[in-house]
């Protein structure tokens, strides 16, 4: 087992999940409450990574984060090193790649909250931030947990984007899924099997926990 890759993968998943919740919650709130004509475009852009092949997304991110773009040069200047082939670059790629897994459940959760409750909140003087904090988030806690679990699990298992942006640098960008790839390349099938089983068990456990929590919630509301 490549414990260095395991630690890096867990760190990447944790950081990505936190950033995705911080970005996804306000974005989902905006999507669920706006009448702007931009809404379908923003919603489509936030969902696009589900449909794009990871290599396509990885390629464009590699170009965007590289030294040929203003963004890439500015990021390199700020960080002291290029974003590509670094942990920070992996975080940027993971956040974009897993964005739909945060925004979709959060938007669905916010939509499910009775609009009359938000009307009452507004009538009682609550601004948008207070509506979000005191009504929407507590009433869609299950969606927030689901979004966090999906983002974490999806990041743990991602391969294409991570490989394109980060390459395969031990301790810096080699995640578990890349370690499996390396093990297979080296014909170390037993090692690859152990690492794969770990990822499989992890994803399955996360989904079972999520669905059992959903069943408990439905039973308590019945």
């Amino acid at each position, binding site marked *: 087992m490549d414990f260095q890759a395991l630690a890096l993968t867990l760190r990447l998943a944790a950081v990505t999940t936190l950033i995705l919740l911080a970005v996804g919650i306000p974005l989902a709130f905006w999507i669920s409450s706006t009448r702007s004509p931009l809404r379908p475009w923003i919603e489509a852009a936030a969902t696009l990574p589900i449909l794009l092949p990871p290599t396509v997304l990885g390629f464009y991110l590699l170009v965007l984060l590289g030294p040929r773009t203003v963004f890439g040069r500015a990021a390199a200047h700020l960080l002291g090193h290029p974003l590509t082939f670094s942990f920070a670059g992996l975080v940027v790629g993971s956040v974009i790649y897993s964005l739909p897994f945060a925004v979709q459940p959060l938007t669905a959760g916010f939509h499910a909250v*009775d609009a*009359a*409750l938000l*009307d*009452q*909140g*507004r*009538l*009682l*003087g*609550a*601004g948008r931030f207070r509506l979000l904090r*005191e*009504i929407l988030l*507590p*009433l869609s806690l299950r969606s927030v947990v689901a979004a966090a679990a999906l983002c974490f699990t999806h990041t743990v298992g991602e391969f294409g984007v991570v490989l394109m942006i980060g390459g395969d640098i031990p301790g810096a960008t080699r995640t578990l899924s890349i370690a499996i790839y390396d093990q297979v390349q080296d014909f170390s099938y037993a090692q690859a099997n152990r690492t794969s089983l770990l990822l499989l068990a992890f994803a399955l456990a996360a989904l079972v926990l999520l669905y059992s929590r959903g069943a408990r919630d439905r039973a308590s509301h019945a």
Partner: protein
Amino acid sequence: MPDVSIRHRLDRFTLDVEFSLANHWTVIFGPSGAGKSTLLRMLAGLTNPDFGRIHLAGRTVCDSAQSFAVAPGRRSVGFVTQQPALFPHLTVRENVAFGILHFSRTARAHRIAEMLRLFGAASLVDRRPAQLSGGERQRVALARALAPGPQLLLLDEPLAALDDSSAHDILSRLLALDLRVVYVSHDLTEIWRLPAHVVLLENGRVKATGPPHQVLAEHRDRLLQLLGI
């Protein structure tokens, strides 16, 4: 100039009304689908009219000509509907406190107790909405709406789903308050008893205004037909 002058396109007709509010109770009366609830939502600021002007409690809160609309929370109105829409994750105390968080802690506690006592709901303070009956929920919703001290209370058939005893008790408590109320109903017997100025609404138009006995008597046959009686 009338307090309310609104033109607003709905699915089946255009809501086109002009009327003034009475000093005590104004009843918006009419059959289902006449535009009563939409009208109330516009007074509350939850929906803005396509065209028109709304003047509440001495100030203009909406004027489409100037693209001006005061936010619902700044109109000094309370709004209670048939479904009380209590926040299910909060206790009764927290529900009533929601609109008065700017009060000091002591003033807030005093106000919550006062409002719940006013509607006979003081014993419910630590319960959650799921633990309340329909009548109890409505009492808490009224206490919550009145806690910030609104200048106008908007009521959209708040008693329609309650048993006669609860409905009568709550209505008596409301009538005893020195408060401007706009009350939407399609219950003929209820309206007949109210000391109110009635606005009869049909297909988005004001058909008549005046005291209940006058409006209801003049349109008796038509109303009975519309209400399917």
